[in-house]
């Protein structure tokens, strides 16, 4: 185990809060605003961590354990994600399923905490969140399966670094479909615009935001941090797919990959600026469409 394997998760932990900043900056540029500082999330996290939390006396221990548990799940997931040709710290056959499972576990805690408050808004939010997640999950798993099939490996650390431009030339349509499906999953899982609006201020229209209304202080910091880390992980998955270059030295590869992740962030920002939020029935079609694309990709690669 080289130094590089330790650096990959560290880079993720450190740079993750920068990603929402980049997206915000892109959106601000599109809207002609100056936008908040790139490092806004770091300031927010620092501020929240120093505060105390206020708990309602109707909530149970679930409410105050859930944010840290969710954050722990995401942190574990981050140990599975390779970047720029460097394998991850943890690698075991079939960890693509573990990865999806850990993301699901984090969401499970968030939903549980939201339901624990007994607030109607939070219940509505969690119901929507689960609805979307249930539709996004097959797309995620099917596209990961398609890519795994292409490389014929079952560990993220073996699949993603092995991917090369040659694979793209060989089966462009399948990989393009899988990438497109993953991109839609990224938007849906991270509450980005065509599915959910992260900046909305109306509880009725919120999905993810509605669930975390009652959290404050370090709990909210954990939630915000794990959301950004999740975005980082999905982004690095997409970046490994889209920029499968091997420059030769691990540090160079890592740098390219990091640029790639921020590139994905820029794309997300552009998409968010160009699209409006979709109605729920259309979201359903979008996500089922993503699953369909992923399934077609898998069928294309199966033969």
């Amino acid at each position, binding site marked *: 185990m080289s130094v590089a394997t330790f650096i990959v998760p560290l880079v993720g932990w450190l740079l993750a809060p920068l990603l929402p900043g980049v997206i915000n900056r892109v959106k601000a540029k599109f809207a002609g605003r100056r936008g908040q500082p790139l490092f806004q999330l770091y300031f927010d996290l620092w501020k929240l961590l120093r505060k105390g939390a206020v708990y309602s006396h109707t909530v149970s221990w679930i409410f105050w354990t859930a944010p840290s548990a969710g954050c722990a799940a995401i942190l574990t997931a981050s140990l599975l994600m390779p970047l720029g040709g460097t394998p991850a710290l943890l690698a075991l056959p079939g960890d693509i399923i573990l990865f999806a499972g850990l993301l699901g576990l984090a969401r499970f805690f968030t939903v549980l905490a939201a339901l624990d408050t007994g607030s109607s808004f939070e219940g509505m939010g969690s119901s929507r969140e689960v609805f979307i997640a249930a539709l996004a999950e097959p797309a995620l798993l099917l596209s990961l399966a398609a890519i795994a099939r292409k490389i014929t490996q079952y560990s993220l650390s073996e699949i993603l670094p092995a991917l090369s431009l040659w694979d793209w030339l060989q089966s462009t*349509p399948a990989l393009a479909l899988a990438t497109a499906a993953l991109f839609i999953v990224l938007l849906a899982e991270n509450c980005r615009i065509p599915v959910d609006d992260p900046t909305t201020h109306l509880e009725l229209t919120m999905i993810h935001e509605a669930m975390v209304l009652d959290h404050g202080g370090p709990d909210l910091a954990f939630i915000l941090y794990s959301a950004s880390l999740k975005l980082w992980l999905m982004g690095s998955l997409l970046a490994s797919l889209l920029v499968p270059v091997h420059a030769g030295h691990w540090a160079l590869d890592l740098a390219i990959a990091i640029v790639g992740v921020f590139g994905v962030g820029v794309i997300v920002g552009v998409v968010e600026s160009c699209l409006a939020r979709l109605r729920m029935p259309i979201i359903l079609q979008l996500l089922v469409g993503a699953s369909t694309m992923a399934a*077609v990709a898998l069928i294309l690669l199966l033969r």
Partner: protein
Amino acid sequence: MIDLLLILVVLTNLKLLGASRLGASIRTVAAQGVVLGLLPLVTHPHPLSIRILELAAGSVIIKGFLIPGLLFRAVREVDVSREIEPLVGYITSLLFGLAALGLSVWFGAKLPLPMGALSSWLVPVSFFCIISGFFLIVARKRAVTQVLGFLVLENGIYTFGVGAMQEVSPLVEAGVLLDVLVAVFIMGIIIFHISREFEHIETDRLSTLKD
């Protein structure tokens, strides 16, 4: 290149299975027609003959523009609402489509072309079109959608014909295209009359005649 076109055909079929808008469906079929019209250009490796160009041009014009134009006219004249109102829901349809795709791939592997195909996707894609066409005819209420299903079915057969056979007699090709055109033309007229007679174009209400 052939693979790319064929996969586009697969995607248009899936889009059609999941589409809820009549106009979008007709446009999708038109797009499929154009893609299929281009197919003969890439399946013929030897220098392009005038005949191939004619076939491609004829297919693109008839499948991509004339027939969709007729259907758009029929839809506009009868001024129906633009939702499709399926008998089988969109998601079920899509799942069915995926199952059909898998089945076609399996079937294509079972039934290899004896002279070898230009692309291993030819047979599966044509089967997939045929199954989707049948499904659209059975699972959709509107007369226009049934016509679209018929067109997709016909497209599947066309795909097989263009891909599997290097040479088909031009007279037969012209006859086939003409027959399809006239069939759709007559169907368009009937759709118009159905809407006038019943004030709707849903074929599930065509159920007076039975034993």
